[in-house]
């Protein structure tokens, strides 16, 4: 092997390992900063406690866990069908001209900062929900819609790439045996693109679960387990962002513990998502 080849291999290995190293360092940091809270409050009490009142040294994260799960699920309900549908349309049904116009449009949507989405949600969506549907307006619904729109471009782009990667021979084969375009998509193209679409879904879910700024502006940040779509809610990420400016001591450790729980929850969601799709057989 020539020297350049060897050098390139080594450099790439180092770069590849550095990502893992950074991840490892982050995990180490948040676990060690969160440890005092887990120790003093108790892991079980921290994770299942229903009351969050740092001023009185009461730390229960369950409402925030429920909040994160609720808005993430809501975002997926809004964003997944729209995103996948857009991707299928762009890849399988749109004319070349339409596709060439729409793809950049979707990518432009991805470039809009989350604060802008939050701001629009705050000034237009929240009053709409308050006046037409009831409740304070700051709600699971508002968060889900805002987050759903935010993950839409991610879902569309990656699913589109996955669909485009399916060999044309699949489609030609289906058409040859007399399948309609939709049957072709449903029975041949989508299953073939399954792993790419799953990746899109997981990435979008991660984005929704980790979004902070936009959610703070429209969720209401009430420390309750949401009972309906119109209830205000607080996510784990909002919890950290709202209080990190002044948290000290046990409170600060509890916020890191929230970070640890968030990390674990997202990890579990990823595993569940992969298992659910693998179970159906590739």
């Amino acid at each position, binding site marked *: 092997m020539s020297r350049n080849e060897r050098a390139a291999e080594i450099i790439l290995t180092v770069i590849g390992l550095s990502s893992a190293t950074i991840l490892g360092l982050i995990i180490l940091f948040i676990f060690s900063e969160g440890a005092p809270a887990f120790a003093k409050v108790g892991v079980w009490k921290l994770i299942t406690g229903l009351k969050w009142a*740092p001023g009185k040294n009461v730390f229960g994260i369950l409402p925030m866990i429920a909040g994160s799960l609720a808005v993430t699920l809501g975002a997926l309900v809004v964003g997944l069908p729209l995103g996948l549908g857009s991707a299928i349309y762009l890849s399988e049904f749109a004319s070349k001209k339409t596709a060439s116009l729409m793809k950049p449009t979707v990518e432009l949507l991805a470039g809009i900062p989350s604060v802008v989405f939050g701001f629009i949600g705050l000034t237009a969506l*929240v009053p709409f929900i308050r006046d037409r549907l009831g409740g304070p*307006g*700051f709600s699971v619904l508002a968060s889900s819609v805002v987050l759903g729109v935010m993950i839409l471009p991610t879902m569309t782009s990656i699913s589109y790439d996955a669909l485009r990667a399916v060999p044309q021979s699949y489609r030609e084969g289906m058409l040859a045996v007399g399948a309609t375009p939709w049957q072709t998509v449903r029975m041949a193209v989508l299953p073939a693109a399954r792993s790419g679409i799953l990746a899109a879904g997981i990435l979008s879910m991660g984005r929704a679960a980790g979004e902070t700024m936009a959610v703070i502006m429209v969720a209401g*940040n009430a420390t309750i387990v949401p009972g309906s779509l119109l209830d*205000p809610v607080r996510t784990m990420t909002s919890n950290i962002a709202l209080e990190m400016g*002044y948290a000290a001591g046990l409170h600060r450790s509890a916020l890191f513990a929230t970070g640890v729980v968030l990390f674990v929850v997202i990890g579990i969601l990823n595993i569940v998502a992969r298992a659910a799709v693998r179970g159906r057989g590739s």
Partner: protein
Amino acid sequence: MARRLVTTALIVSVLLLMGLASGCVRRESKAGASITLAGSTSVQPFAEMLAEEYGKKYPDRSVVYVQGGGSSAGARAAISGAAQIGMMSRELAPTEKELTPIVIAHDAIALVVHPANPVSQLTKEQVKRVFTGEIVDWSAVGGHSGRINVVSREEGSGTRGAFDELVLEGADVAPRAIVQDSNGAVRQTVSQDKMGIGYISLGLVDRTVKAVAVDGVIPTVENTRTGKYTLVRPFLFVYKGHMVPDAEAFADFVLGDEGKKVLASEGLVTSK
């Protein structure tokens, strides 16, 4: 070849422009380093006004930058040195006793509702029971039937700390309460929600919301000064150890006649 030249020239000129622009924005005064005030969102708009007046009157002195973050964050910043002066809208907590406070004004906390809300007065007990979640419907306090949407502040807020102390007296805010992270956000929320109620600095009450009378007393500057309105808290500048001369100069300005004029004209109560 020409295309590459043009592109390079374009990039270089954009970078130059950015550099010039940033230089114009960050005005380094002759006195050198700038000073930073951080903390209470209640004090923040007034501090910004004072900083602007200060800059106009003494263009040769240090530039004053003002940030928010809440009273607790302001105390943290003063302790850590991130800010030369911390701004707070409540008394120092036991954990903050290493800081030295200066009272620059007194400010009342006003309970605000939507202007179309028929309720114009509440007793302190009613306010307490609304915010703890005991009273949930407007009809219980004289308004049209409908669920009360309580709006509160985050725990580190000085306004909230003062509110907790003066009104709640140790009771917990209802978990269902919406939490916003600044006076401005609370005001905006209540101004749009006919069922909303929140508390903000009196100095920030404007036409978009209605301040209700508490125990029969309307929150006004006069009532605050005479002590008739009791929901009052101090605005503090806090610092650790000694203030740097630049910060001290600004503090002197704020406590002097010029500073008092600015604060009084905006609805705060200053000492005579």
